[in-house]
């Protein structure tokens, strides 16, 4: 099996790992639960405020902005896992990357559904026009499309079916999705680019650290399939 995945990559066999490090594994599971619960807070708050009519004068706009903001935030957090792991040496944080990435997908689905249902209310001709004529929607929709195969192939089974090299090659598209997401936000704000620039900086740093890591050519933990 090691040969199929290439040098340095090990498949995740939970039972073996559990046998080796029971205490550490319990801590990881605990962290995962915590992250899961925290990641649901933005949506919960949105639903609560919607119910209390506390979303301001333009609730649809607020929902669109909020779901978009959390999509980008989770994307950035996901992109920072690998650089942080290399810099700190805390290999365990790699175990959270999939969940964080899937939450980015969760929020992008909410964002797209808000656009489809709340903003456009199934006005398909207008939606098609938007996607083809409004550059910021073109790049936003493209970013959404890229994330779909990434979410679908995020499972252990899919990792095994694709094999390490193909899986990694496919998942490198997340960089383009992150970039397209930042551009989408930058191109839609009227004038105040403060928020988009912060995301642009977060994205750039995540990418620059990766480039530096590659240049150093150290045997980096990023070669191991994360869980």
């Amino acid at each position, binding site marked *: 099996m090691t040969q199929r995945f290439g040098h340095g990559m090990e498949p995740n066999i939970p039972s073996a790992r559990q046998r080796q490090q029971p205490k550490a594994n319990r801590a990881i599971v605990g962290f995962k639960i915590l992250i899961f619960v925290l990641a649901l807070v933005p949506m919960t708050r949105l639903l609560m405020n919607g119910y209390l009519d506390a979303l301001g*004068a333009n609730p649809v706009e607020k929902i669109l902005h909020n779901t978009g903001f959390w999509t980008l935030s989770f994307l950035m957090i996901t992109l920072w896992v690998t650089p942080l792991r290399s810099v700190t040496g805390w290999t365990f944080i790699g175990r959270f990357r999939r969940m964080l990435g899937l939450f980015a997908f969760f929020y992008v689905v909410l964002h797209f559904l808000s656009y489809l249902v709340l903003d456009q209310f199934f006005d398909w001709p207008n939606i098609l026009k938007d996607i083809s004529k409004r550059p910021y929607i073109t790049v936003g929709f493209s970013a959404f499309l890229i994330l779909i195969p990434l979410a679908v192939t995020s499972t252990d089974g899919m990792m095994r079916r694709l094999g390490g090299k193909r899986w990694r090659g496919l998942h490198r598209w997340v960089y383009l999705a992150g970039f397209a997401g930042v551009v989408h936000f930058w191109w*839609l704000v009227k004038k*105040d680019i403060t928020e988009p620039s912060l995301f642009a900086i977060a994205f750039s740093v995540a990418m620059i650290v990766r480039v530096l890591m590659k240049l150093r050519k150290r045997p980096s933990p990023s070669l191991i399939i994360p869980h």
Partner: protein
Amino acid sequence: MRFNLNLKECEVTSRALWASRRDFLRQTMTAGLGGWIAAPLAAKAGSLGAKPNPAFRVSDPTTPLEKVTTYNNFYEFGTSKEDPAQQATDFKVRPWKVVVEGEVNKPQTFDLDDILKLAPLEERIYRLRCVEAWSMVIPWIGFPLKELLNRVDPRGNAKFVELISLMDPDQMPGQKNAVLDWPYREGLRLDEAMHPLTLLTVGLYGDVLPNQNGAPVRIVIPWKYGFKSVKSIVRIRLTETMPVTSWMKAGPSEYGFYANVNPAVDHPRWSQAKERRIGDFLKRPTLPFNGYADQVASLYSGMDLTKNF
């Protein structure tokens, strides 16, 4: 010292009352100086005595006051919609002077009280359409700008009217941020400024303008995008050449001088064909000239409105 932690929510001072505490102090302190000082201050709390003008009333339902006063684009107080209501609470609207100058035979400075007495105050219900594709319906109080312009007697070569807002970064913290070129400048062609629809506005919903809506005096031009309806005006200048407005400077390919509401001319980055009326769920089609075409379209006959956006 004993703390009473059993305070009930009904005992909390209402925000409106708390926000007007300084007015209350001012009023009680100046009460002794006689009615001529107290009267304009008392006007803040009561009705402006405006008469509804049935000729200028759209039948659309009006937007609730709460939304009108908590969803504002007023970058002088911050760029988010909730900022102006939160940041403008201590904005000083008295004393206030509006300087009228430029190509006029009788340049003069108007005190706020002069303006309030310049012409009978009317209540008009106008649609307001933002360039961002949302809209409201607001009962404004004011009188046609042409009443003021006739007082200053524009010269023959006056072709445009420039309207300039306050420059005061201490009171308007958003001006410390160069998101726009401050002070906020807007402008109209003289015939647009003299049009009966163009309203020099001093109030809304029966009362004086809340700070976040452009107190104490602003303009409302209902057939143009909202950014033309400049708030908190301090200077009106008649000019021979077309003024360069703040948004023209900020985005010349996106914000033009005329900025007439036009569903056929998209913003470069988004469509202008539809809008969200605040309070509605579904979007509605945008009307040419925001529904005022029969009153203003003639001003632009022969003009290419795609080029002159």
